[in-house]
């Protein structure tokens, strides 16, 4: 079932992940995952919970060091990055976390330009100006710059998270469940906003989602993960109705496929 995306892609791979493996003790969270994407392409990662989607994403951004395999970004092997090159790599990848993970000890503008301030690439007044510009891009008022993240609703925090992720104009944008916990209208709004920003800046977008419909309609490529492995990957345009049904069943855990709890404690095939 598995087929590398690059086989169907005409352009050379901008992101090339080969046999990436990440273990936590005995559990193999990400198991020999291959991933190839051209610049400006979009990919939705889908799969039941505990499939290894978030761990894969955190390996890509460098939070976790991989136990095996390689990650190439525009020809550079980033999994071998030295500590001094780490900010450089991090500036080429922006990530939005599932719980936003904003720093509530800091003001909104300090959140957005945290790395510019701390790595010294901008002075504070320039950083604030830049943050206000980004706030405009994600649809927030200039006045919100001096508030703290806790003054905001969930949807507004999500926007601040996006502004922080795109603050270095990254080549790659990683989104961990960007619309989780938002109402349908706001979800659509956020999805459209991300698509618009990505298109304007030619950003490669990788997004984790649990919604098969959103994955099929808004993303060019789809990768389904299951128990740390790639279960299926390919162009969303190639997914026909029968295929869609199979993948959706897989996602909901009702497939005849080999679904068991990854901790091995439950055997009834129901995902917690």
């Amino acid at each position: 079932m598995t087929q590398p995306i690059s086989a169907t892609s005409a352009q050379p791979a901008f992101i090339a992940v080969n046999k990436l493996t990440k273990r936590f003790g005995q559990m193999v969270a990400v198991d020999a995952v291959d991933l190839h994407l051209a610049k400006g392409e979009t990919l939705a990662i889908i799969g039941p919970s505990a499939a290894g989607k978030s761990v894969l994403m955190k390996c890509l951004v460098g939070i976790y060091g991989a136990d095996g395999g390689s990650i190439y970004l525009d020809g550079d092997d980033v999994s071998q990055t030295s500590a001094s090159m780490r900010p450089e790599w991090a500036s080429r990848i922006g990530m939005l976390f599932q719980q936003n993970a904003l720093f509530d000890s800091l003001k909104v503008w300090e959140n957005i330009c945290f790395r510019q301030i701390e790595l010294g690439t901008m002075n504070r007044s320039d950083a604030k100006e830049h943050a206000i510009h980004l706030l405009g891009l994600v649809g927030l008022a200039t006045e919100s710059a001096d508030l703290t993240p806790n003054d905001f609703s969930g949807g507004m925090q999500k926007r601040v998270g996006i502004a922080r992720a795109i603050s270095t104009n990254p080549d790659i944008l990683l989104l961990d469940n960007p619309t989780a916990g938002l109402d349908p209208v706001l979800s659509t709004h956020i999805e459209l906003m991300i698509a618009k920003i990505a298109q304007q800046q030619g950003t490669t977008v990788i997004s984790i989602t649990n919604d098969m419909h959103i994955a099929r309609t808004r993303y060019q490529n789809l990768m389904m993960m299951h128990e740390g492995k790639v279960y299926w990957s390919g162009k969303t345009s190639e997914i026909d109705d029968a295929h869609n049904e199979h993948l959706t069943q897989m996602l909901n855990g009702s497939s005849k496929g080999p679904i068991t709890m990854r901790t091995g404690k439950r055997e009834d095939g129901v995902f917690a």
Partner: protein
Amino acid sequence: MSKPQHAHGDVRSKSFVDYLNDENVRAVLYQVIAIGLIILAGWYLVSNTLNNLEKQNISTGYGFLDLEASFEIGESMIDYSAKSDYATALLVGLLNTVKVSVLGIILCTLIGTIFGVARLSSNWIVRKLATAYVETFRNIPVLLQLFFWYALIPSAFPHPRDALEPLPGVLLTSRGMYLPVPVADNAYTLMGIAAIIALVVILFVKSWAKKRQDATGQPFPMFLAGLGIFVGFVFLAYLIGGAPTEMSIPALKGFNIRGGYNISPEFLAVLIGLTVYTSTYVAEVVRSGIQAVPNGQWEAADSLGVRRSVALRKVILPQSMRVAIPPLTNQYLNLTKNSSLAVAVGYPDLVSVSNTTMNQTGQAIEAISIFMSIYLGLSLLTSLFMNWFNKKMALVER
């Protein structure tokens, strides 16, 4: 039968039992009874005590405070001699208590934070050493630790004859530590006043700078300006005061060391003992505070490419402060109260001076009432400050 009548409320008037069953009446009644019992008990104790004291011909009252103390105190922050009165003696004790408490609070916060962070270090040796420190000093009674340090200092350091001199002018002996200090001069008083004025000026400039930045967005280099104002004011006062340069340098004269500023072994023992003991609790407070911050905050900082130390300082510690302030307040209060154990090693703190006063005057109740209200006052002041700080740091969730 009476129920429908009651509902109409026009026939039957409320009986005494009805009043007793009324929730509001009951609440007041209980409080009146409780307060009455307390007053009764208090009156009984006080009148009994007065009665007994009268029988023993002991006069009551605080008149003894004006009498000559006629005992020496080992160390004092203000002018004191055996000819001073008891009030001055107690003030000397209070200042000594405040001195050791304030220094202890500052030091235990610094040391405790370092060990708290070290307990979470990824370095195995650092982590284990920090754990050993915390588990050792947390589990030995603080009084025994005071004895230990007080026994250690005289035996670990040489007689004044062979004083160690780790830095020029600094002497370490079995009689404590000696530091070179400038000879007292009015210029230094002037400098202290100038420093206070400078701080007030800085506060004004800061609020002006904030107003300007809010209005125009123009940032103001507050740190540099503040430093400039402070140094400028203090230096100006130094020059106006005649720029004294004479120093008092400790040196051996006869059998003892004269000159300089002496830090007594008693003071050192109390300070080290209280600091070490309390710092282990502070370390645990800091550790739990850091662990209370969600892991996602570390990950988010990491994804931005900043170092772990930056993430710790800028993201994690400010958030763990909120969790840590209330238990930290407890530790500060404990340290202040534990400083009363200083009497055990002969450091002339408030309790020690009060003890001598009691022995000489026989005014036990008055002396105890004085130092108990002072400790209560110190604790309430600490609480008040920490509550204010807590409010300032607290997260306003909307």
